[in-house]
C-alpha cells in the first residue's frame, strides 16, 4: 500500500476512523444516550405518580396497610390500644405510659388516610396526672385534626379508664365490660404496729407540720385526714366535670352515679355512661360512620415498633420472668392520688 499525501478525503477504514467519523459517532451515541436517559426519567416520574396515586397492596388490593412502615392513601380507621394501668411511666425502664399512648394517638391522627380512631381501652385507671394527660390529649387531637374518636371497652374500663373514654365522641362497651368506679382514691397504709414489733422507729425532721402527710409509720391525724379528703374531693370534682363536659351529661344526673360503684356494660348503657353495646367491629363501623368513610372501613393498627423491640428484647433476656419489684409495681403498689379501681386489692 502506497502512502497518499493528497489533501483529498482520507480513505475510510473501520480500524482507523477519521476525526470526523469519531465526532459523528460520538454525537450519535450522546443523542441515543440522551434519549434513553430521557425515557428512563419519564418512566421514573410515571412510576412515582402511579405509586403515590394508586398504591397496590400486597396481593393487588388497593391499599398499603400491609406495609409495616407503610403509607396509605385509603380512608381508614386507626386503632390505638390502651391496655393496663395508666401512669406516666411503667414498671419497665422503657415504658413511658401515658405520654407514649398520647403520642401514639397523635401519630395515628396525623397518619394520612386515617379519618377516625378507635381507642381500645382495657384499663382499671391510674394516677390522676397520667389520666388527665391522656384526657386532654384526646380532646386536643379531636379538635386539632377534626377527627372522631370512639372508645371501645374491653374487660374493664373503670375509673381513670372511664375518665379517658369521656374525652371520646362515643363509647362502645361489651355487655359484660366492667366500667364506672367514678371516684378518687388515696391509699395510705399504716404499718406502725409492725414497725413497733420489729423495733423500728421513724423520726422525720420536718419544715412544716404536714410535710410527712400520708406517712405510714404513724396514725393519720384528724387534720391530715381533712386535708387529704379536700384534695380527693377536688380531684373528684375534676373527674365529674370531665365526664359532664365530655359526655354532655348534667351534673345532677351524674353525681348519683358517681359514688365509686362499678357497672357492667348493660348497666352503664341504662345509666347513660356508654352509648352502644357492641364489639370491636361495631366500634370500627361507628368510627367509620362518624369519619364519613364510605363502604367497609379498613383498620390501621399502628404497631409501636420500639415497644415491640423492647418486649422482644425483654423476652430474650429474661424469658418474661419479673422481679418482685416489677410484680409489686405491676399490681399497683404506688403512692399518690389515683383514678383507679383496685378490684379490692
Amino acid at each position, binding site marked *: 500500500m502506497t502512502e497518499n499525501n493528497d489533501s483529498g478525503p482520507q480513505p475510510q477504514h473501520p480500524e482507523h476512523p477519521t476525526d470526523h467519523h469519531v465526532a459523528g459517532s*460520538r454525537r450519535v*451515541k*450522546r443523542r*441515543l*444516550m*440522551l434519549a434513553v*436517559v430521557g*425515557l*428512563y426519567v419519564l*418512566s*421514573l416520574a*410515571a*412510576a*412515582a405518580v*402511579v*405509586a*403515590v396515586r394508586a*398504591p*397496590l*397492596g*400486597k*396481593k*393487588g*388490593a388497593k391499599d*398499603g396497610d*400491609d*406495609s*409495616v*412502615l*407503610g*403509607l396509605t392513601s385509603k380512608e381508614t380507621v386507626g386503632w390505638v390500644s390502651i391496655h393496663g394501668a395508666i401512669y406516666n411511666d411503667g414498671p419497665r425502664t422503657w415504658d413511658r405510659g401515658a405520654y407514649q399512648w398520647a403520642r401514639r394517638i397523635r401519630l395515628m391522627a396525623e397518619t394520612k388516610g386515617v379519618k377516625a380512631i378507635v381507642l381500645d381501652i382495657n384499663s382499671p385507671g391510674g394516677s390522676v396526672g397520667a389520666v388527665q394527660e391522656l384526657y386532654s390529649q384526646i380532646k386536643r387531637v379531636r379538635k386539632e385534626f377534626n377527627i372522631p374518636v370512639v372508645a371501645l371497652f374491653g374487660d374493664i374500663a373503670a375509673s381513670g379508664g372511664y375518665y379517658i373514654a369521656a374525652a371520646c365522641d362515643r363509647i362502645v362497651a361489651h355487655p359484660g365490660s366492667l366500667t364506672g368506679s367514678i371516684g378518687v382514691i388515696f391509699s395510705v397504709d399504716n404499718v406502725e404496729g409492725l414497725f413497733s414489733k420489729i423495733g423500728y422507729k421513724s423520726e422525720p425532721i420536718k419544715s412544716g407540720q404536714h410535710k410527712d402527710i400520708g406517712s405510714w409509720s404513724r396514725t393519720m391525724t384528724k387534720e391530715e385526714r381533712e386535708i387529704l379528703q379536700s384534695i380527693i374531693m377536688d380531684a373528684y370534682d375534676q373527674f365529674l366535670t370531665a365526664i359532664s363536659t365530655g359526655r354532655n351529661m348534667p351534673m345532677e344526673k351524674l353525681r348519683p352515679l358517681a359514688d365509686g360503684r362499678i357497672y357492667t356494660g348493660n348497666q352503664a348503657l341504662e345509666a347513660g355512661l356508654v352509648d352502644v353495646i357492641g364489639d370491636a367491629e361495631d366500634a370500627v363501623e361507628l368510627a367509620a360512620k362518624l369519619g364519613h368513610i364510605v363502604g367497609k372501613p379498613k383498620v390501621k393498627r399502628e404497631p409501636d415498633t420500639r415497644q415491640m423491640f423492647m418486649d422482644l428484647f425483654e423476652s430474650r433476656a429474661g*424469658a418474661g420472668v419479673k422481679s418482685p419489684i416489677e410484680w409489686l409495681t405491676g399490681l399497683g403498689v404506688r403512692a399518690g392520688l389515683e383514678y383507679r379501681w383496685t378490684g379490692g386489692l
Partner: protein
Amino acid sequence: MMSAAEVVFDYFEDHTRSADSVRHSRPAALGLLCFALTGVSVFMAQAVLGRLAPFSLSVTSMVLMAIWEIVLGLAFTAMLHLVMEFEGIQGSAASLFALMGLASLVWALTVPLALILRLVAPGNGWLATAAFTLVGLLSLGYKARSIQDNYQVGAARAWITLFVPYAAVVVAALLVFAVAMVTMFRQILQWVS
C-alpha cells in the same frame, strides 16, 4: 477521553471498547451513580408493584435503598477482587467497581417493566417475580462479562468467581440459622428442665 454517556453506551454496544476506557479512566463516581440509580430503580419498580414492605413510600426509604445498593456493590466488588487477587490475577478494583455498576444498570429496566406489568396484569405476583428474575439474570450475565473484561479471564472462570460472593452469603446465612436453631433448642431445654 470518552464521556460517561459514551462509556455507558459502549458498555452495552461495544463492551471491549468500554472496558478499555474504564481500565484507563477508572470512573468510580460513575460506578457510584450507577449503583445509586439501580437502588432507585428497584425501589420505584417495587413501589409500582406494591411490593415495598417493609419500606414505606418515602424519599428517606428511597435514599436508604440507594445507599444499601452502593454498599452492597462495594462489598461485592471487594469480595470479587479479593478472590481474583488470591488466584493471582491482576486487575483494577476501581475499574471492576465501575463495570459492576454499569452491569447493575440493567435493573433500570424494571421501572418500565413494572409499569407495563401494572397495566397488563395488575396484582400478578408471578409475572412480576419472573420479570425481576429475568432482569437479575441479565445483570448477572453482564457482571460475568465485566469480570472477563477487567481481568482478561475466560467465561467459565468469570462465572465461577461471580458466584463466590453469593455462595459466601448463603453459607453465612446458613451458619446464622444453625446458630439460631442451636440457641433456640438450648433455650427450650432450659425451660423444660
